[in-house]
């Protein structure tokens, strides 16, 4: 049978394989296989494909540190209640440049705003003690009532005077300090008489 097959086609018609063509065909086949393989997707930050350079990352880190420091300073200053020696008696003239900048931006109160806030807080406390005193007043004798009214009048005169002075000159440090002192004195008077 092999002999019959060999005999059917003349051996002169059988061509040897072309190695060059064969290699080209194999090469094309391989390249085709590579192209069909999907390329892995490049994933950037936040899945949006952002890519940052080292300098950009460095600048961002410095910015974050600066903002954190500023916020910490502002937070600490607002957390600790200012004493009477702080904003209630201070004026704009005694603020540091840094404080002035923060005031303009609105991150901290100006001395005048702090003073007004403290005055409102004291007034709330005074209103509370005034109601307590009103409940006790009927139990006092005449001498006690007269003493209370007389001394309250003296204190209120001072409160009104300092408020007038501060309206005409908000930068008056001494009047701010004295207003705080007389408001405290008023609270002490009300508190003492509310215990009787």
């Amino acid at each position, binding site marked *: 049978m092999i002999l019959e097959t060999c005999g059917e086609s003349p051996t002169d018609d059988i061509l040897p394989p072309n190695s060059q063509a064969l290699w080209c065909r194999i090469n094309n086949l391989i390249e085709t296989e590579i192209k069909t393989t999907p390329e892995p997707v490049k994933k950037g930050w936040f899945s949006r494909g952002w890519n940052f350079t080292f300098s950009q990352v460095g600048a961002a880190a410095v910015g974050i540190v600066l903002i954190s420091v500023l916020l910490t300073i502002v937070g600490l200053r607002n957390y600790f209640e200012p004493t009477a020696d702080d904003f209630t008696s201070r004026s704009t003239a005694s603020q540091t440049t840094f404080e002035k900048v923060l005031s303009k931006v609105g991150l901290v109160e100006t001395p005048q705003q702090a003073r007004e806030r403290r005055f409102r807080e004291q007034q709330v406390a005074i209103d509370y003690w005034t109601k307590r005193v009103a409940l006790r007043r009927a139990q006092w004798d005449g001498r006690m009532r007269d003493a209370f009214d007389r001394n309250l009048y003296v204190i209120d005169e001072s409160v009104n005077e300092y408020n007038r002075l501060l309206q005409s000159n908000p930068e008056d440090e001494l009047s701010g300090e004295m207003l705080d002192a007389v408001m405290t004195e008023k609270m002490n008077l009300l508190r003492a008489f509310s215990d*009787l």
Partner: protein
Amino acid sequence: MIRNIKHRPGIIRVAKATISCVLAVTFIFSFGVRDTFGQRRFSRTYPAGKNVRLVLMNRSGMVTVTGWDRNEISISAYLELPAAQIAPQSLTDKIYINLVKDNQGRDVGSVNFEVRVPYEASVDIETTIGNLNVISVRGGLVRARINSDGDITLTNIGSATVAAENVTGNILFDGLIVDDGNYRFSSMQGRITLRIPFTASFRLVATAPSTRSIDLGTLGGGRMRLLSDGRRIVGQNGDGSAIISVTNQRGSIAFLKR
């Protein structure tokens, strides 16, 4: 003799008057010293160490505290009717009397205290109405506060921490200024007078915002300066170790040489 008395009606009248007086006096004293003329008396003595602290909060009335050389605290009180309740508490190194708390809501009369304490005792006294006096005390603290009307007189004081406050009334301090001491005087209306050695070392802040009346006498010389249109004087005497703060909102301040 009997015949002589019968014939002397003047003698009989005198005898009757004498007997009536004796009976009247006996009647008055039969109620005891404690209830004389609408007053009651309270008296108690406590043993105390040299550094004992007296805390006394009166409601209405005068309090006088005087130092002495005994290791005990003697409390005498004269109570106007209706009598207040007095309940002193003897704690460790502290005698505590609070008439405000013990008589809250009750209508009671004034109570005037006379207290004797060791020289080195600390004194912390307060009253709503009335005068406060502290004499010859040199313990760590002397604090006297009147919540309304009353004068404060601190005489011969050698304490390092002194605070005297009232609303309306005068304040007189006569005593030493101890190195590193802290002295605070405050009033709304009245006169504050400080009689101190002008050789003492202290920093001074004196404020009289309404009257601008601050009389330093011969104190300070050129080391004192006026601030805020003369409403405040600040300065230093000596090396400035102690601190003196004087504020009189609507009154005057004066310094006298001791």
